[in-house]
């Protein structure tokens, strides 16, 4: 029996309903005659406080409110890939076709997965009638896109004896493809199942994140790497390039599946992804990026309550693909808007505010979200290892990193890519500040680099960082006394730091060559700069030749080395060696002249 009550009060996205005895916390309800979707966020006696995910304009006290008996859940099955959903998993493409309008009209109801589309299902050899199945076991596959072999799993909470399974063939998501008997009950299996978004999907075991998630962005992979199953925050004031960096991650990273949540951000940014990703090729597979991407869009002008939900909708989908054994990257732009949605909802519920009006449970909600990342062994057979890597943008008001969302997020993530306004003003992109950023995975992933790229990776990474750190100190000195009083070594530090910044850290996201660097190219570029640094260092340490004499001799070649990031393609890395070779020769010539 579903609960049926009526509206008592409407204030913005909050609807208060009475006669709601029996309603459950976080149950989904249908509000008003249009059946607008909402979620129960507080219960007092028979009065329920409801967050409505659509505009409440036109609702009246006395209008009906119907309980559905279920918590907010998402549909998980083939057909998710390449879709764009709103914050509560309604397909926006479908809404457009159905409503024949360029606007999102409210009250439109559509299932998340297309019901009429037939999928080619191939049952697993092992999945024979009579076998014992535990939750999560793969019973067959569907080719969802060219890139994704969708593994159809028994829902995590279902286990028992497989009674029946359909043979290979074409099925819609609603067709029953098998049956499990559990405690005498018969449970039908379909290509999809649903899962409540606020409940993390279970797994067998969590593993340590040791493998880097290569992103193709040099400052990230080389200086502040992220591991598969890791967590990262990317805070920055407006205009510092959060979105461009996140688009870069979504575009180039080595993940099998990418879920991009546009949470309270610009409509055009979602459009950009929608237009570009079908055209752009995944650098790892050569297929259109859209084949591995799911978008969730709650743009800044869409209802706020759905913004709060969008994060959970996205991460639940991510866990679902993780359970299939895939590496999933989820990027959320921006978690601050999600936190503000929490604040707005808490405000309407008249909860006692903590810092800056945010509710006191802000920190625990942020922690819960990031805790859903991880590299895990999935439930069921066969053994599968998958991961969810979480990257969240943070938009601190006024660029102030001490505000609540940034400071709490910092406690729960292990990588911090701090964007810097000063760098952005000089169009140094990505504007990740190397003094403020850090990665706790730098040590854990160094083994991978040692094995796959170069033995000296960890040492060279430290060298580069030390030069950058030292440069900062030297610049302090220059600010007081000018460049005159500097030692030759410090002058070299300034020289190399510029080379690192211009020739390595800066990366143009829109240049065909520069936008993406694989690990080998990254290391080659870094090593080239360090080789030049070391050669100059050994010359000036003899005390006879100064930086003022060195610089003019090699300035042309060094300019070429700096331009190398966009002039030397991946298949011509030896040109870096040739350039370095020329520079070394010039330096030798300088020594011989003495």
């Amino acid at each position, binding site marked *: 029996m579903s609960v049926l009550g009526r509206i008592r009060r409407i204030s913005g996205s909050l609807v208060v309903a009475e006669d709601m005895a029996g309603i459950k916390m976080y149950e989904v309800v249908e509000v008003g005659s249009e059946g607008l979707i909402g979620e129960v966020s507080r219960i007092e006696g028979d009065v329920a406080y409801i967050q409505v995910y659509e505009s409440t304009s036109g*609702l*009246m006290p006395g209008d009906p409110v119907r309980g559905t008996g279920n918590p907010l859940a998402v549909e998980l099955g083939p057909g998710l890939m390449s879709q764009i959903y709103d914050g509560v998993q309604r397909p926006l493409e479908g809404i457009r076709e159905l409503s024949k309008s360029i*606007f*999102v009209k409210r009250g439109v109801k559509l299932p998340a997965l297309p019901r009429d589309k037939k999928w080619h299902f191939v049952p697993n050899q092992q999945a024979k009638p009579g076998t014992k199945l535990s939750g999560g076991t793969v019973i067959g596959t569907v080719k969802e896109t060219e890139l994704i072999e969708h593994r159809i799993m028994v829902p995590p909470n279902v286990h028992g004896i497989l009674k029946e399974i359909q043979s290979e063939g074409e099925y819609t998501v609603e067709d029953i493809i098998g049956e499990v008997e559990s405690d005498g009950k018969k449970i039908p299996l379909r290509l999809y199942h649903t899962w409540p978004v606020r409940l993390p999907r279970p797994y067998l075991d969590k593993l340590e994140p040791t493998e880097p998630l290569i992103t193709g962005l040099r400052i990230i992979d080389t200086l502040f790497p992220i591991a598969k199953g890791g967590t990262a925050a990317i805070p920055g004031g407006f205009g510092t390039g959060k979105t461009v960096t996140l688009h870069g991650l979504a575009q180039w990273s080595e993940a099998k599946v990418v879920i991009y949540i546009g949470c309270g951000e610009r409509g*055009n940014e979602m459009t950009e992804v929608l237009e570009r990703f079908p055209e752009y090729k995944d650098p790892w597979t050569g297929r259109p990026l859209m084949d591995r991407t799911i978008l969730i869009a709650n743009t*800044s002008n869409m209802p706020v309550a759905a913004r709060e939900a969008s994060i959970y909708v996205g991460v639940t989908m991510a866990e679902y693909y993780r359970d299939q054994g895939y590496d999933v990257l989820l990027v959320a732009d921006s978690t601050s808007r999600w936190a503000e949605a929490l604040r707005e909802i808490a405000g309407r519920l*008249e909860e006692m505010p903590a810092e800056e009006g945010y509710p006191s449970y802000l920190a625990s909600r942020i922690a819960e979200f990031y805790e859903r990342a991880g590299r895990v062994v999935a439930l069921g057979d066969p053994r599968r290892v998958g991961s969810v890597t979480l990257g969240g943008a943070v938009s601190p008001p006024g660029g102030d990193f001490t505000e609540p969302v940034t400071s709490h997020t910092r406690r729960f993530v292990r990588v911090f890519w701090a964007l810097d306004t000063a760098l952005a003003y000089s169009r140094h992109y990505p504007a990740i500040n190397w003094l403020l950023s850090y990665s706790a995975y730098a040590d854990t992933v160094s083994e991978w680099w040692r094995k796959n790229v170069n033995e000296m990776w960890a040492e060279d990474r430290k060298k580069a960082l030390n030069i950058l750190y030292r440069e900062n100190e030297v610049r302090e000195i*220059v600010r007081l006394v000018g460049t005159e009083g500097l030692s030759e070594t410090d002058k070299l530090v300034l020289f190399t730091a510029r080379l690192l910044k211009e020739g390595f850290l800066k990366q143009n996201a829109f240049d065909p060559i520069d936008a993406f660097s694989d690990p080998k190219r990254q290391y080659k570029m870094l090593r080239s700069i360090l080789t030049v640094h070391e050669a100059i260092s050994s010359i000036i340490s003899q005390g006879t030749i100064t930086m003022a004499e060195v610089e003019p001799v090699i300035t042309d070649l060094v300019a070429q080395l700096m331009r190398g990031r966009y002039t030397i393609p991946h298949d011509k890395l030896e040109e870096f060696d040739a350039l370095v070779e020329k520079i070394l020769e010039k330096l030798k010539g300088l020594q011989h002249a003495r």
Partner: protein
Amino acid sequence: MSAHIKDKKRLSGVLESKEVMMIKGPLIFVKASSGVSYDELVEIELSSGEKRRGRVLDVSTGVAVIQVFEGTTGISTTGTSVRFLGKTLELGVSEDMLGRIFNGLGDPIDGGPAIVAEEKRDVNGDPLNPTSRAYPKDFIQTGVSAIDGMNTLVRGQKLPIFSGGGLPHNLLAAQIARQSVVRGENEQFAVVFAAIGVKYDEFLFFKKFFEETGARNKVAMFVNLANEPAMIRLMTPRVALTLAEYLAYERDMHVLAIITDMTNYAEALREVSSAREEIPGRQGYPGYMYSDLASIYERAGRTVGKKGSITQMPILSMPNDDITHPIPDLTGYITEGQIVLDRGLYNRGIYPPINVLMSLSRLMKEGIGPGKTREDHDDVYNQLYAAYSRSQELKSLATIIGEESLSPTDKKYLRFGEAFERSFINQLPTENRSIEETLDIAWNVLSILPETELTNVRPQYIEKYYRKG
């Protein structure tokens, strides 16, 4: 939001109440039997016979909270009758509104005939479906080098001007409105102008400007002056953008929407919020200000299958020239960049005083390059940014350690910075530079620097454009 209220319990669309329980700030609390709906439009008749309008902000069984647009001055708990009109605030739209002047709620105030509406539209609008949007990529030449060269505007963008008291933002907005063209096209355009709480002389400036340029018949003005009720300010931009949407998406026009001054809008929003005793966010502004501002700024763009577009240019004054103040801060997070005016440049006599380092156009990359502007544009603007920011750094260093202690190259950077401001940024309010002129001036100033410093420019462009000697 556009859903019409369904009359389930109301035989006629109108419901009346004469019981005003409380009056507080811009709000009145009215006893009403069931049937009042959220966000409904209300007509309030005072005992004097004067009629005002408002909307329902909160409704519970028995009580409705109403925000009165024209203010509550003179309203009494007795003798006032409140009629619930059974619909949200709508604007009757028509192409004939171009060339006319309206008040902040969309009623004509120029003495002309009433508008015969072709269609009625809810002023709140609906969010554009992201799948219906088309990414903006048509270059708009504004004729202003600091914008075209460094922060290119494209059609369908929302690009605000962040200004301060006494800075020439109006002059700049007018110059942009006059000079803007998409090259090689001759399509229908229109300007929708919303004045929110501005001083009369500012309104007069724009009115005269549109008349003098002969663009009068292409402009619809919605005006709420500084001495008019503050609550109307919350509706004025919505009313103006409703017309803009109609012209763009139903009449295939390219609309430029100029909205000034958004700071006054935010102040009005704060006033309502504090009257409702809501928990404030930063500096007393409501926690939902981000979403609220977004519901205005996001009403810009291009859509798939429609010819028209809305390009938005809101103007806001930064209180105390502080860009981290909540109003510019939240705006910057929503809009696609910002043009920041700078008092230092203004005092040095530079017009337009655009601080290019703090300014940004997020949609620039798609609007420039071969076929749109020129092949070297991307590299040139990157180089100008890198070099100008270096020059500014060196300039502040030189004030401490003296210019003499700088290296010869660094001194060239100082000269470059000076020339960049004097000849690239600086231009006359009547000067309309083509993009080629802008880029040529850029190369003039870049050529002050040694060739080897131009590490952001591809060698083939240096070869072609760099001026040796």
